[in-house]
């Protein structure tokens, strides 16, 4: 049996926002934002609550129609792409997920194959193979027939990510993939994300915790009040000034002795 290659590097996966504006009704969240996401890397979007980071991710994933500007996928406006075509190039995991009671891990992951199926193309051996690979990638072997309700938080989140892996898209957008998890489970999920990037996928995630973002992302996008105030390698852009601008706190930054990524120490509320 032929195994589909997991290398997605040959497919370009350039996602850009050009002059992008997003609004809820008359309430503008983001205005004239420009962003180009580095391919094959992990990008983390960080910022205080309500800064528009999840809205930006929703806009990039076409869950939200822009009030101005465009989101471009390999130069094409995503609003003009057919839904199915978009779903074969860009996978998305929302922050809050919900599965019907009794749904098993393998059933969930199989949903990821839907964009590749159609009336003339039902479940195939290739689908089967991709699902098995996704399960392996997310380290879920042996849990295939377990109900999602019976899993630990970390396992459950890895199962959801495995569903997006099975979608076999060069681009993965994850909205706070670790928000409800304890530290051990967070690391499980972040390490899975790193492995995906190592295989050539472009990952964009909204992350609540600045320290984790610095540790696991290659590229950091810092947002404040709907605008990007800094972007780049976290080791270069994270400074006490930026932290103060973002969260209104003073801190000392020290490089992680293992990775060199910035760690926040001596955090206190900013003296105004």
């Amino acid at each position, binding site marked *: 049996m032929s*195994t589909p*290659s*997991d*290398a997605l590097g040959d497919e370009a996966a350039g996602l850009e926002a050009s002059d992008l504006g997003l609004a809820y009704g008359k309430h503008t969240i983001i205005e004239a934002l420009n962003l180009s996401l580095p391919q094959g890397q992990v990008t983390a979007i960080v910022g205080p609550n309500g800064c528009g980071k999840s809205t930006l991710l929703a806009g990039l*994933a*076409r*869950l939200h129609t822009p009030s101005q500007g465009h989101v471009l996928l390999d130069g094409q406006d995503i609003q003009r792409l057919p*839904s*199915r*075509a*978009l*779903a*074969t190039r860009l*996978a*998305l*995991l*929302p922050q*809050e*997920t*919900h*599965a*019907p*009671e*009794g*749904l*098993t891990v*393998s*059933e*969930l*992951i*199989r*949903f*990821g194959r*839907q*964009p590749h*199926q159609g*009336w003339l193309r039902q*479940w195939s051996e290739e689908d*089967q*193979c991709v*699902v*098995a*690979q996704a*399960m*392996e*990638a997310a380290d879920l*072997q042996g849990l*295939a*027939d377990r109900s999602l309700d019976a899993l630990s938080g970390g396992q459950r989140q890895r199962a959801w990510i495995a569903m*997006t892996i099975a*979608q076999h898209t060069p681009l993965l957008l994850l909205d706070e993939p670790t928000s409800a998890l304890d530290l051990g489970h967070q690391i499980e999920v972040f390490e899975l994300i790193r492995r995906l990037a190592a*295989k050539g996928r472009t990952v964009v995630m909204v992350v609540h915790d600045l320290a984790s973002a610095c540790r696991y992302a290659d590229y950091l996008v810092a947002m404040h009040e709907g605008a990007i105030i800094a972007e780049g390698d976290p080791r270069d852009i994270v400074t006490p000034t930026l932290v103060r601008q973002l969260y209104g706190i003073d801190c000392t930054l020290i490089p992680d002795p293992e990775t060199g990524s910035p760690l926040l120490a001596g955090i206190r509320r900013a003296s105004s």
Partner: protein
Amino acid sequence: MPEPATDMVLLKAAGTPPRLLAKALFLAGLLLLACLASLLFGAGDVGPVRALTWLLGGGDDEAHFVISTLRAPRALIGLTVGMALGVSGALLQAVARNPLAEPGLLGVSAGSAFAVALILVMGASAATLRVGVAQIGALVGCLCVLGVARLRGVDGDPIRLVLAGAAFTGLLGALTSLLLLYDQRAADEIRFWVVGSLSGRRLDDLVAIAPGLLVAGVITLLIARPLASLALGERVATGLGHQPKLIRLLVIFSVALLVGSATAVAGPIAFVGLVVPYAARALAGPDIRRTLWLCLLLGPLMVITADIISRLLVAPSEMPLGVLTALCGAPVLVAVVRARRLPSL
């Protein structure tokens, strides 16, 4: 190149559990038995032995008449109505993501019945007209109650949706009674119909509802896959390349066709759409692509069995089918609501 997946993993990722087919075959066998029993038992002089003799090629003229003009059409109508109600319940529950969303409880059947009463009072009586009107009534009922469900506060609480539906059903029931008070002729014509029954229906009624059922069936087949993904939430379904709004509209349209057709033929029959999908989920798991198949078997099984009991329980007269399904269904509803927590869809 990643390591090739092991056979074990592949096996685990494989599709439909083989047990489902066995369950479906078992249910099909039961349904066949129920259909046979429906030909054998009934009020009147033709008992099981005479009926069986006729079925086996012997028998007399009376048995021939009773079976071919009364009981066989009745079994066929029960089969059709059961399928329509079972499937419509599963569809409505999937689209409302509410295990209690049942066309009979939410006012869909009541909307349909009210519309039919209205045109009868206005003087109409043709069967085909009745079907169309029943379907429009069901559609309006469906939209009303789902509209209420989207209001702030009701959304997200399954029991509140049922309360809204109960209020709506009560209101429409009262209006229907009011209409009938003013028109004795219409009242006589539909008194038995309005409580739900399979007795005295003709095969012509089936011909009238066939197109609607066919359209609903095709739509259901086309949207089964995206509808299944809607169970993972609107955003996930969108991420998988589907259009939740379109799916939802199509589902509501098919539910209206199905419930309208069933109601036009048999009157409003509640609880089938609650009990049947519930049992189907218990047997086949949460994926609607599997539960729908079982609903096709379980729906008629419940309706035909209830119809046989309704004939025998108070023979020689008949208990209306709608009364019997309510007697079986209401305890199930109470049990579901009383459960520690509602199963989430």
